[in-house]
Every structure is written in structure tokens, then in C-alpha cells.
């Protein structure tokens, strides 16, 4: 028989449960640092703009705190959870062992169990020794269990670790660098407009996108506007529209043809350039666009002169055909406008001649009107209202 097995069996039957007492903690400060501590719910995002791309990294919310790094030593003493059992075993074992010793000592005085002898003892010395030995062994066995429990319950368990003890909070909204949010919904909003869903972050909590694809082209974006980034429907930050503005301005500039404008064949040949300047007056290509329009101006003026002359030329006979001052002034106004706008235009001479002849005609009509008015006023009845009479005469003599 293996003694180890016996001891194991004895312990399995009689050993008291051994546990750990309450922890005693001893802290020794080692160093100071700042650290992140998870803080509440919510998302914090890092926004990076790389050219026309925006990189959104979504993190859990942390707070940045001052931390003291401590060397923490935790000591827990082993304790016997059922000492009464060991007391009982120890006392019983001691009693048995003492009894066994007594029996052993006494065995020297025990008579032989010889029925033919004058002295007699039913046990006999050899049996007494066996009994004494057995009692001693049993007592020691029981006492051993108590002693083993005593040994098991002695000593302590100790471990040392470095722990960070939080102190003052420096910032209560910083990204937890070790805790990214995957599959977070990213949306983009411009101004007061409805947010547009952009996509979801990957396993690394990152989504890279081009805002240009999510802001309608028809929407006029200025260089000083703001784009709002939303993570899981919560706004997490803003970006300037400067990059988007520059991107769209450059694309619009590239789409224009300078030659069409500087060598115009139509009056509206530079309409695209004008619209470009109106929309991107602060763009990096605005100066170049203005130079092109300046260069195109003489050609455009000539085209406009030509177009205006084509209309005015047809108006000359209409102008000349008028017989009253009112209709004459109205019908000849385009000629005077043309002369004022294009003093050296292609129709300069015919218009000048027409206006000179019209001036003589107008002078004659004015004299006629004066004579007519004087006669009319004389014919007015005595006692009639002079103002009413004058108005009636003016109407009559103007027609």
C-alpha cells in the first residue's frame, strides 16, 4: 500500500477546507503618467483630410486622466475554513495516542493469559501491546490530519502587480486608442441639409471617402462652409469645405475651353467662363478666368455691335416713318441707344445720318405743336379751368 495514497485518502475524508482570508493591499507609487480610461457611452472620431479624401476613425469614448502607477502588493493569508473539525480530530487523536501510550507502558504489567498459571489476564501482554500500538497509530493518524490542515492553512498567497490609479481628469472626450468601433454608420451633412449615408467603418474602425461624391453637384459649396461628420447618427466633428470647393473649382475650370471664349464666334461664347467666375470667385483659377474674359472682350464687343446693328438697321425706316413726337421718340430710341453704346460701331454712319434727319423732322413737329397749343388755349372758353384746358390742348396737339 502506498502511504501517499493513504494520506491522500485520509485528507480527502478528513481534511478541512482551506481558503484565503481578506486581501491586504499595499501600494507604493512608482511613476506618474496620463492614461485613457473608458468613459460613458458615445463615440469619438478622428477626422483626417488627405487632399480630397476624408478619413474617419471611430473610437469608443475615453477620458484622459492623470495616473499614478503603483506597485500593488496583495497579500491573502490562508485560513482554515472549518477549524472545529480539526480541533475535534486533534483532540480525539491526542486522546487516542495518549491512551495508546498508556496501554503500551501498562503492557509490561499485564499478566500472561495462561489459564494454568497463578496469574492471569484475559488480554495478555502481547495483545496489550498490539492494542496500545493501534491506539497510538490511530491517534497519530487523526492528529496528523489536524497537523496537515494546520500546515495547509499556514502561510499566505501574495502577488505583486503594477496598477494605474486614476487622478485628475484632463479631458473627458478623447478617443480610446485601443477600442475602435467597427461597422459604425458614417454620414455626411452640409449646412442644414439632411445627412447623406456614406458607409460603414471596417474592422479597424476606419472609413475613407470622398465628400464630393455625397454632396450634390448642384449644391453651391463655398470655401468657408462646414461639413458635419456623423457616426451612428451623432455628430462627431466638422471639416472645412475648402478642399471640396477647390476640388470642384479645379474640375469646373478644366472643363472650360479658353479658345472658344478668346476667339468668340457667338455673343454667348464666354457664358461658361462668366458662370465659372460667378460660382468660384475665390478659386485659385479665378484670376486666369478674368484674364481670359478681358482678352475676349474686344471680340465679344464686335459681335455684340454686329448683332445690335442688325436690329437697329431694320429700325431706321420705322423711325423715319413716324409723324408725331411721341411715336418718333419711341421708334428712334434704339438708334440713339446704339449710337451711345457703339459710338464707333459698324452702323455708326447710317445711324448718325438717320438721327440727323430725324432731328430736323422733330424740330418741325415741335414748332407745329407750339402753334397748335397757342391756338387751342385762345379758343378755351372764358371762365373754364386753365389747368384742364392746358391738359386738353397738350393732348390734342401731341397727336
Amino acid at each position, binding site marked *: 500500500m502506498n502511504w501517499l495514497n493513504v494520506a491522500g485518502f485520509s485528507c480527502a475524508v478528513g481534511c478541512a477546507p482551506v481558503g484565503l482570508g481578506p486581501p491586504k493591499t499595499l501600494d507604493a507609487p512608482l511613476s506618474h503618467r496620463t492614461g485613457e480610461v473608458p468613459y460613458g457611452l458615445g463615440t469619438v472620431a478622428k477626422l483626417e483630410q488627405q487632399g480630397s479624401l476624408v478619413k474617419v476613425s471611430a473610437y469608443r469614448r475615453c477620458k484622459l486622466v492623470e495616473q499614478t502607477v503603483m506597485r500593488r502588493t496583495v497579500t491573502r493569508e490562508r485560513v482554515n475554513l472549518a477549524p472545529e473539525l480539526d480541533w475535534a480530530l486533534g483532540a480525539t487523536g491526542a*486522546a487516542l495516542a*495518549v*491512551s*495508546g501510550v*498508556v*496501554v503500551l507502558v*501498562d*503492557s509490561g*504489567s*499485564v*499478566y500472561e493469559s495462561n*489459564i*494454568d*498459571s*497463578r*496469574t*492471569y*489476564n*484475559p*488480554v495478555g501482554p502481547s*495483545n*496489550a501491546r498490539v*492494542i496500545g500500538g493501534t*491506539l497510538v497509530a490511530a491517534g497519530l493518524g487523526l492528529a496528523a490530519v489536524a497537523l496537515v490542515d494546520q500546515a495547509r492553512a499556514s502561510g499566505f498567497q501574495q502577488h505583486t502587480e503594477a496598477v494605474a490609479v486614476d487622478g485628475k481628469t484632463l479631458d473627458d472626450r478623447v478617443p480610446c486608442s485601443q477600442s475602435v468601433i467597427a461597422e459604425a454608420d458614417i454620414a455626411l451633412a452640409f449646412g442644414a441639409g439632411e445627412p447623406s449615408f456614406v458607409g460603414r467603418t471596417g474592422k479597424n474602425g476606419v472609413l475613407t471617402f470622398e465628400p464630393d461624391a455625397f454632396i450634390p453637384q448642384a449644391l453651391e459649396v463655398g470655401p468657408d462652409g462646414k461639413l458635419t461628420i456623423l457616426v451612428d447618427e451623432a455628430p462627431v466633428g466638422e471639416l472645412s469645405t475648402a478642399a471640396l470647393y477647390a476640388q470642384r473649382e479645379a474640375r469646373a475650370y478644366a472643363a472650360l475651353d479658353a479658345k472658344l471664349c478668346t476667339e468668340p464666334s457667338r455673343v454667348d461664347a464666354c457664358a461658361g467662363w462668366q458662370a465659372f467666375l460667378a460660382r468660384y470667385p475665390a478659386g485659385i483659377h479665378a484670376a486666369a478666368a478674368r484674364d481670359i474674359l478681358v482678352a475676349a472682350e474686344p471680340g465679344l464687343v464686335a459681335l455684340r455691335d454686329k448683332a445690335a446693328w442688325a436690329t437697329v438697321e431694320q429700325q431706321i425706316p420705322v423711325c423715319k416713318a413716324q409723324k408725331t413726337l411721341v411715336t418718333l421718340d419711341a421708334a428712334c430710341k434704339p438708334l440713339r441707344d446704339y449710337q451711345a453704346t457703339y459710338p464707333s460701331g459698324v452702323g455708326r454712319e447710317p445711324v448718325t445720318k438717320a438721327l440727323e434727319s430725324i432731328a430736323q423732322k422733330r424740330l418741325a413737329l415741335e414748332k407745329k405743336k407750339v402753334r397748335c397749343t397757342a391756338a387751342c388755349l385762345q379758343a378755351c372758353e372764358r371762365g373754364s379751368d386753365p389747368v384742364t384746358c392746358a391738359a386738353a390742348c397738350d393732348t390734342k396737339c401731341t397727336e
Partner: protein
Amino acid sequence: MTRRLVTCLVALGLALTSCSVLNREGPAVTCDDLHYGAINACQDGIIASCLHGKVTYTLCDADACDESFQVPGAYRCAPELEKPPSDEPMPL
């Protein structure tokens, strides 16, 4: 008081655990004392008799010597038993 109690308990324990308390001693006699078989003697349940000039012992119950049927000099282990062997007839 406590010391007495402890002492009593220890004494009781020793008494209970000492096998020697079961020791029994028969009468320390000679054949001459037993008139060479004419009588026997009894002590602690052991009867001493003289047989062929030699003292022999018979083991009886521990309290056999004090039984009511005993007759001094003619002890028996039990009432129905024959008298112990002897060289000479026992006197009546």
C-alpha cells in the same frame, strides 16, 4: 475544581485503557498449605489445588470465589462441577 475534574477524567481514562486492571492473581499457597490436596484455596476466581505434590491452578469466573455455593476449602468453578482433582479425599 477544574483541576480535579481533569484529574478524575485522566484517572478514568487511564483506568479504562490499562489492561493490567484485568490482572488476576490466584492464592499464593503451597501443597503444605493445602494439606497436600485435602483442601483448596480460591482468590480472584483462581482455585489453587495440590495434585501429585504440586500446586495447580484452575481458572474460573472472576467472582467465582465469592459465589454462594462455595464451601471454604472446597471451592468449585460452578455448582454443578465436580470438585477439583486432589490426591486425597476432601473432608466433609
